């Protein structure tokens, strides 16, 4: 009974640790998104405001 509980706790700790490690890798290595590759911002004017 005691050994089973200890195994469960150990597995839970390993799972949490693995989760933290993966999250850290994604956080550090992740690019956070891709900026628009084409186009650009243009001021409204002329026919836009007719």
């Amino acid at each position: 009974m005691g050994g089973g509980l200890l195994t469960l706790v150990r597995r839970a700790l390993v799972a949490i640790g693995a989760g933290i490690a993966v999250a850290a890798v994604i956080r550090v290595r992740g690019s956070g998104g891709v900026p628009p590759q084409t186009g650009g911002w243009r001021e409204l004017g002329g026919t836009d405001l007719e």
Partner: protein
Amino acid sequence: MVSHPKPAAGGSLGVRTLNKTRRVVLFGAGATGARVARQLRSSGRVDCVEIRDPDEMTAARLIDSLGDGAELGVGRTLDESVGAVVIASPGGTQTVLARRAIDAGVPVVTTSNKTAEVRRLLSLDQEARFSDLPVIVGAGFMPGLTCLLAKHGARQFDEVEEIHVAKVGTGGPACARQHHRALSSRGVDWRDGRWAERTGGSGRELAWFPDPVGGRDCYRAGLPDALLLVPEFAGVQRVTARQAATRRDRLTAPLPMLRRPHPEGGIGAIRVELRGRVGRERRVTVFGAIERPAVGAGAMAAAVTLHVLDGRMAPGAYGLAGVDDTAGLLRTLASRGVKPVRFEGMSTFV
């Protein structure tokens, strides 16, 4: 799209406006109020701006900086000699003032960005229509310019299905406090024809704002934009509003503000994304603007006030998505120094 009836040429609104002096009462001498006052005075189209603020020292300093054509006022009493009232006081104080103005028969421009207050202001619609007065709700940077750009951009669509707005930055201290509260408040989205409450700080989305602001993580928050947009776009399926926040903002959102906010925030930006249909083609259009939020809000509120004084705003309580002459208002805004932009790139897909 839903339209508010335009004031008829020579109709009651126009005649009533001509009988008045171009005198404006401004409640609030904070960061936004100061910009409204400066914009109205520099327009040369307002005879006098009467500034009222509980902090009379601040109001007096602003009046000194404005010179002729600005004067100090006290209390909440209004009379029919006033051409328009602009309310730039902190959120939560604007409904009472708006109701006073309606009772006095004076058109109102409000700048609230507080969800509960925007609901209350919109509920003044019947009173405003009965009194034949425009009550403009949320005439700021966001809400305000975002609503106007959404309505303007929607003209290029046969059907608008989705509207997504987002903002970065804060104006004065009152705006910063509201920004802080909003992140821990429940947001309200419109989804598939019904309102959906969302937890503030959830729903991270990377939004691209005009340069130099660029990409920012934006989150749901207690923002009133959907309340102002949905009534003006019949058949719209999704309307969402988000605000940019840092990790520290999200972590400290449930706590009281840990330090006093700055007198004014830095550069800010807004973004309006419209998704819809043009013929058989599905299209996405993105508008934006960059400005210090208090400057943008002040310019927007001043431009709206000038249109109110000219009798160009229809009676009723509505946001700027309810304006018919969006191009005219955007031109007035551009003359006040705020020029929105549009993203041009890949925007269509079948």
